[in-house]
């Protein structure tokens, strides 16, 4: 797994999915808040983080229910006005979770849905990253998923670096890790 140490990948796998246990499991009552004994009964519907849901699915111990952010309602909203859907509040890892969950729920349409959403949103990300970022950012940024934020940051920071270069100035700077403490002479 080349992403073993990847922070985003790890946090993404904390996203919850609803699963139905096809088997019973002893000694793990903590997973099911409604359980009265220290076990999860066969047929219980439980919310599990993706890292657990996925592995249990592969072992045929659970079936996975389509997460809300990929349901028909969200799809209709995206089709109506992709750029203005608040995807972050639905799932900050919308695309990543979509890619990983699609095989589990055997839904062929998730791939094209993600593609459609991404295609119709990424242009906005770009133009806002490069243009009047300050005016639109407060309204626009909170709608973005993590991946879209990374894209926005990629575009914005390379533009900022370019502008800084064009203005000129000192080529040597204090290491940013030292913080911006008082500088004598200022």
């Amino acid at each position: 797994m080349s992403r073993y140490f990847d922070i985003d990948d790890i946090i993404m796998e904390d996203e919850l999915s609803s699963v139905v246990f096809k088997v019973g499991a002893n000694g793990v009552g903590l997973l099911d808040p409604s359980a009265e004994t220290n076990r999860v009964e066969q047929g219980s519907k439980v919310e599990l983080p993706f890292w657990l849901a996925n592995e249990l699915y592969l072992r045929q111990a659970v079936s996975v229910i389509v997460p809300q952010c990929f349901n028909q309602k969200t799809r209709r909203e995206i089709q109506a006005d992709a750029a203005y859907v608040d995807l972050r509040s639905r799932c900050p890892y919308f695309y990543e979770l979509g890619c990983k969950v699609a095989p589990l729920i055997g839904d062929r349409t998730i791939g094209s849905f993600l593609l459609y959403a991404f295609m119709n949103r990424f242009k906005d990300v770009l133009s806002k990253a490069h243009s009047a970022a300050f005016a639109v950012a407060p309204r626009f940024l909170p709608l973005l998923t993590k991946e879209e934020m990374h894209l926005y940051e990629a575009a914005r920071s390379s533009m900022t670096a370019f502008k800084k270069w064009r203005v000129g100035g000192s080529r040597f700077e204090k290491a940013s890790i030292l913080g911006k403490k008082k500088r004598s002479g200022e």
Partner: protein
Amino acid sequence: MAGQSDPSLSMFSAAEVEFLAEDEMVEIVPNLNMDTLNLICVNFIFFGYFLSLSQGDFGPFRPQMATSVPLWLAVALKKRGKCTIRCPQWMSVEKLTQVLEAERDSPAQFQPLPFHYVEISRLLFDNARDDIPDMYMARSLIEDIRDVRFHKFESGLEKISSSTHVVKLKNLSAMEVNIVRPFFVRALQAFAKHDSPQMIHHQQDAMSSRQAHPQDDGPRRDLRRR
């Protein structure tokens, strides 16, 4: 550090792109006497010529005798008041005006400009302002050209899609590439991911997809020319 590139993006910093541009040749008119310099850091231009000079020889420098040197050397001499730099032809107001018009008239293509036009012009504006006729005009023309080109590129980006596999970029300059690279590469990766066979075609067995060795995946999306 300001000029340092981010290794995780395998990207060049603007200062590093400028560094590459500093090896481009410009003409200077010295006002001093200096012997031939035998330098190691030079561009070696061999297209169409047998070089009579041994590599890296510049000068001798004689007052009023024009000669070609790498930009970094020209700037160093200029800073010390030892030469004037001849403004390259493409930086004349007349030429730049033509380029700007052409850029505006052809929304689908970029006009030919030196690969390092952004960096060269900045270095000359900053260090040799008295050698550039109509400096302010030239500078604002370059800004406009860059802006028009950038927006052109931006609308071009909107056309990338999951079927984009190769992009051919005619006349895009070094600094322009550097600015769009992080966004462009990341967006293409995202497209590729959402359009991978595992996503579009139903995978037969989730277990088997885990064993697929990444090295063996050939390119699979269609080719699109722009």
